[in-house]
């Protein structure tokens, strides 16, 4: 009899603990007062985390109830979350977003920011989502070589790689060989046929290390992430415009896109330049400062 009671007690404890934990975890955020409450989602890419916090601080200052959900995952997690109304706002990149919305294939409209924004809006409007004006901060894929290689072979542009590519190994994210903005585009647009491809990471530490120790001779990095400067790499100029107009843009649900929100975000985006975001990235990736702190310090520095 005791055993029976004990087992039932055990079960009861398990269920109660479970429900209690679930309840604390699932309590929804406090309801908004007068201004709409805004959930900002960020990918686990540090640059987007910085910009999310900048947007969040600006909106909070204006009296909005803001939640910044950090590191939700990749774009494949964050954009569907926005389309389904699970978040209200996310910083993204005009051309890459457009390509994503078209099943991963880069669109012609993405080549220029003037055509990219309307195209993004068209693709998103059926979800009740739109895109505000672009910031001044550009972050595209760049293909980098070491300074030694650049000097030896007189490399400045992607075109200048042509005579050497067949002896070089290209490094990049695993999807690069089938992605139009990566190896496919380098072949089609520039006629570059590499000796091989090495799957690494999305412009992260593996990519940097592989170029440094000579495992690859060309690697895909991001133009604004500071690794090119910090490691004295040479980013080759995209002289035939393979990469799109990847300016940082606020992607927002129409339900929270009030004139005040648009004015605030457009105002801060006008100050967010490529030079500025590159420095903020360096603070996070090299000096190991937190994205939240970096965002606050920058807002102070631009007297916001």
């Amino acid at each position, binding site marked *: 009899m005791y055993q029976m009671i004990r087992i039932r007690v055990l079960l009861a404890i398990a269920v109660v603990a479970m429900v209690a934990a679930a309840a604390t975890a699932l309590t929804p955020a406090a309801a908004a007062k007068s201004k709409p409450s805004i959930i900002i989602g960020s990918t686990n890419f540090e640059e987007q985390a910085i910009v999310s916090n900048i947007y969040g601080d600006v909106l909070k200052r204006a009296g909005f109830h803001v939640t910044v959900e950090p590191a939700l995952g*990749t*774009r*494949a997690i964050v954009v569907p979350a926005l389309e389904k109304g699970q978040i209200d706002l996310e910083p993204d990149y005009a051309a890459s977003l457009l390509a*994503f919305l078209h*099943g*991963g294939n880069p669109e012609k409209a993405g080549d220029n920011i003037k055509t990219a924004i309307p195209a993004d809006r068209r693709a998103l409007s059926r979800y009740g989502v739109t895109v505000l004006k672009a910031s001044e901060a550009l972050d595209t894929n760049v293909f980098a070589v070491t300074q030694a290689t650049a000097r030896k072979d007189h490399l400045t542009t992607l075109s200048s790689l042509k005579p050497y590519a067949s002896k070089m190994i290209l490094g990049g*994210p*695993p*999807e690069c*060989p*089938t*992605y139009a903005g990566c190896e496919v585009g380098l072949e089609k647009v520039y006629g570059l046929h590499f000796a*091989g*491809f*090495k*799957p*690494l*990471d*999305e412009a992260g*530490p*593996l990519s940097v*290390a*592989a170029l440094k*120790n000579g*495992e690859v001779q060309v690697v895909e990095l991001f133009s604004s992430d500071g690794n090119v400067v910090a490691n004295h790499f040479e980013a080759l100029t995209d002289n035939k415009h393979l990469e799109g107009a990847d300016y940082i843009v606020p992607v927002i649900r129409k339900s929270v896109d009030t004139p005040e929100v648009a004015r605030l975000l457009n105002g801060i985006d006008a100050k967010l330049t490529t030079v500025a975001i590159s420095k903020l990235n360096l603070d996070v990736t090299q000096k190991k400062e937190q994205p939240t702190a970096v965002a606050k310090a920058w807002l102070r520095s631009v007297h916001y």
Partner: protein
Amino acid sequence: MSFLSRLLHWFTNAANWSGSGGIPLLFERSLELSLAVVALGLLIGGGLGLILGHTGRGGLVAVNAANAFRAVPSLALLTLLAIQPAISLKWDGFLASWIALTALAVPPILTNTYVGMREVDADVRDAAKAMGLRANGVLWRVEAPLALPFVMAGLRTAAIEVVATSTLAAYVGYSDLGTYVIAGLDTQNTVEAVSGALLVGVMAALVSVSLGVLGRLLTPRPLRAGGPVFSLAGRPALG
């Protein structure tokens, strides 16, 4: 239905069956990594389990510690090794993945080996000694064969976990079947991601079945009925 037909199309597309990103090569690389991990895990976990079980000293502590080490996040070890300049990218990312996943394989093998050794009847040991076997003889000719079914059960558990987790190796630059999963997730290509997962599932099933059969073959005939044919957690070794 359209998803299933796209999945079928992915698997029947000839381009996915050849070259450096093809299914045969990536399947082979996943298998190579998993085998290397399980082999090293057997050497470490099995070896420690034999020694601890034979001497009977410090065993419970080791087994309890081994259980806590099941909580080692493979992602942490993988990424930590991947950002060490001396290890990252060695042998195409193989070294970092090999070390990190071995930590996953050791606990179940160690626990099961130890339990198998302790389950050997004291009378059998005494009989072996009475027949003039030295300590080494008792270990290799009596205890180890009797513990073998347990070792194999632990090996099987470890192998299934290692195969499923080998997908994470692609996250740190070792291209294997996990590459399909990660590339698929990065580009919102669900078909590719699911195909990769299916292939990993097939490999796990193959590995599980072959180790099950091997374990049965290696078990002395009289022990077969009672031996653990498929034990993930083993006997209540920790209780």
